[in-house]
């Protein structure tokens, strides 16, 4: 015998085990008397359990470095120290990079100079020009000499256009683009599927030499490095592991300037 009628809310609370013991007993009695409702509640319980199982492992994954709360708090409280720390980290990376190794190092996007800035500029060029269907490049590949002259004049040093055919990318053309750190040459490539790749290069005041580092720009990945005062950043909607050999090819070819 039940004092109050059993409501839909009671049934939902029964699924979530959130009923008071007395009410729990009343609901149980009600379910016993109504098998079709009991079946529905049983389905809800199974559904709840299945959902929990489906998403359980997400909470067990190790936290990525970007989600370390202690570090985030520290960075926010001591903006002055962050610069020193980045500089120290960069110095260490330079030493390691000198051995020629490929380094996976996420550059903090807040860094305002050097290759971190260059990687952001390349990402911006990629975001603006790569989706452009009408005018992705100012000077097309068949006017290569004009583009090279233009870039050399603005960058005040000779520039080479890497040949990425071996990686499956054709040179489309390029343009000189503005960055907060002066003019940069942007070269664009595409493959048979129309996937576009952007290479940005400019002279470097900070980080004149820096080992390769990878960046994640949403759905695109970036690889950025600098060598003898010239910085390079390559951005494409590819997994970092596939972009890396292309970046190494660019570095190999541009090493002979």
């Amino acid at each position, binding site marked *: 015998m039940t004092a109050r009628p059993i409501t839909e809310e009671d049934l939902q609370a029964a699924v979530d085990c959130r009923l008071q013991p007395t009410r729990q007993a009343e609901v149980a009695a009600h379910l016993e008397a109504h098998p079709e409702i009991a079946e529905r509640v049983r389905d809800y319980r199974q559904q709840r359990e299945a959902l929990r199982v489906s998403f359980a492992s997400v909470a067990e994954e190790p936290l990525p470095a970007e*989600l370390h709360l*202690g570090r985030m708090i520290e960075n926010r*409280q001591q903006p002055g120290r962050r610069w020193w720390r980045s500089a120290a980290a960069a110095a260490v990376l330079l030493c390691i990079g000198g051995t020629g190794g490929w380094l996976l190092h996420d550059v903090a996007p807040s860094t305002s100079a050097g290759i971190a800035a260059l990687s952001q500029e390349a990402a911006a060029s990629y975001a603006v020009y790569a989706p452009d269907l009408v005018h992705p490049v100012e000077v097309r590949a068949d006017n290569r000499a004009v583009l090279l002259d233009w870039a050399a004049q603005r960058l005040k040093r000779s520039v080479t256009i890497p040949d990425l055919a071996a990686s499956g990318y054709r040179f489309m053309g390029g343009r000189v683009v503005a960055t907060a750190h002066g003019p940069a040459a942007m070269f664009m490539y595409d493959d048979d599927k129309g996937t576009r790749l952007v290479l940005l290069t400019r002279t470097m005041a900070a980080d004149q030499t820096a080992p390769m580092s990878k960046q994640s720009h949403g759905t695109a990945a970036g690889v950025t490095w600098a060598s003898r005062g010239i910085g390079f950043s390559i951005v494409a909607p590819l997994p970092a592991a596939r972009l890396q050999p292309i970046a190494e090819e660019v570095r190999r070819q541009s090493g002979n300037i």
Partner: protein
Amino acid sequence: MKDMMRLIEPLIPALRRYARALLRDRTAADDLVQDCLERAIGRWHQRRPDGDARSWVFTILHNLAMNQLRRSSARGRHMAIEDADDEALSRPPVQEDALRHADLLHALAALPEEQRSVILLVSIEDLPYAETAKVLDIPIGTVMSRLARGRERLRRAMAGEAGLAPPAPYLRRVQ
């Protein structure tokens, strides 16, 4: 900030789980949680000290997620559900379970956003109804009715009654 570490840090795995269930994309979800934590740090001193930290930080995350989903749907670029990052979610080891699991995720994807949020917060995150109401900024009666409607819809979809229509993609890929 010591109490922030104590109260918020243990919630980060659950925040990641909720974000991933909403956006269904590992990178986008973690970016969202990072954004949420940055905001939480910035607003920590504005928080009512007697307020519950969990519903407070879940509210921030939920609002960011809704903004993102709205923004990207306004942009009109979307990703078909088949392309969604299923790898981002776990898979039960047994084969038949895996199929059922995929069906369930499809059915979940087909739910209206408002019902999905309630189901995720109540069923997976174990938020009490009153806390869920606070996070979603709706009356508790609305939580209960959305929960009942959402669960029934999922049940029918799983039973193959209402699940025939292809689910509308809910993840909008942000460039």
